[in-house]
């Protein structure tokens, strides 16, 4: 494969005929070389779905790269930018598949969350500690209830308790991941400010639960 500068990649991909075909073939090889490393935490090459996922992601990445070529600003190697696009597509697909396969039915059918074990009913904690924990938790919970909108509250439960990927939580809330992040960020800033006004330090509350 010829070594291309960023400018070479851009001009070859914008060209027609053999130069473009060759650049596309090389780019396909670059993407397919990187994907096993991108996916290594979730999927190994000997798993049956590996090849089809890599092929699907490669196709989609090539399409997106060509579509977004004009947005490349040259602040990194062109191939790093392409790998970034491939990673986003691959992980989005993996998260979707993982979540769809595991617990979408459970999510829609069972809205009740089982009580977390051992938070308040810690057998090793003395009665004073338990009471202190319960009081503090109730105080913070009340503040959260007062400060958060229903939508922020819903997002908090989906992400913090049910452990749903952001993409899926965003889909469920009929928004997108970016807007969901902003929603949570606003909630966090608001809550941090209110806790500070009430003279409650988050790490002090947490320390009540982390020490026995």
């Amino acid at each position: 494969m010829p070594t291309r500068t960023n400018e070479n990649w851009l001009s070859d991909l914008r060209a027609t005929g053999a130069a473009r075909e060759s650049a596309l073939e090389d780019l396909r090889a670059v993407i397919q070389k990187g994907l096993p490393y991108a996916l290594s935490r979730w999927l190994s090459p000997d798993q049956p779905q590996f090849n089809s996922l890599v092929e699907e992601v490669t196709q989609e990445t090539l399409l997106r790269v060509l579509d977004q070529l004009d947005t490349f600003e040259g602040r990194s190697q062109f191939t790093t930018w392409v790998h970034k696009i491939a990673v986003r597509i691959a992980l989005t697909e993996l998260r979707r598949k993982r979540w769809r396969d595991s617990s979408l039915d459970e999510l829609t059918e069972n809205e009740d969350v089982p009580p977390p074990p051992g938070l308040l009913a810690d057998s090793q904690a003395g009665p004073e500690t338990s009471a202190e924990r319960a009081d503090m938790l109730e105080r913070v919970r009340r503040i959260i209830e007062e400060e958060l909108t229903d939508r922020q509250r819903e997002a908090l439960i989906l992400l913090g308790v049910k452990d749903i990927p952001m993409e899926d939580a965003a889909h469920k809330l009929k928004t997108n991941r970016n807007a969901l992040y902003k929603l949570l960020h606003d909630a966090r800033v608001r809550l941090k400010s209110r806790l500070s006004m009430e003279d409650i330090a988050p790490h002090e509350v947490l320390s009540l639960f982390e020490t026995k």
Partner: protein
Amino acid sequence: MNIKELIQKFRASLGMQKELPNEAVLGFLRVLEEVRAEELDCDEIYAKLDEYVECQAGTHDAAQLMPLIREHLDLCPECCEEYEALLNVIEEAEEK
């Protein structure tokens, strides 16, 4: 039925929401220390991720040079996964 359950039943009968589970409250508190008023969102992180990863894979301390990106990665599990996956690609695939 204890008092807490009675209150929940009463709230439910009034159409009010159930109270937040304890783990949601604690999970929320865990990230608060990291939160800054000024912050980049996921789209802004995505736009800069390739640059950040190259910086990290090189000899630079990316977190020090671009602290807002590091802060977002610490708070956002999905962006962090993408960062780690891309770093792995650049460190492993590009060397071979």
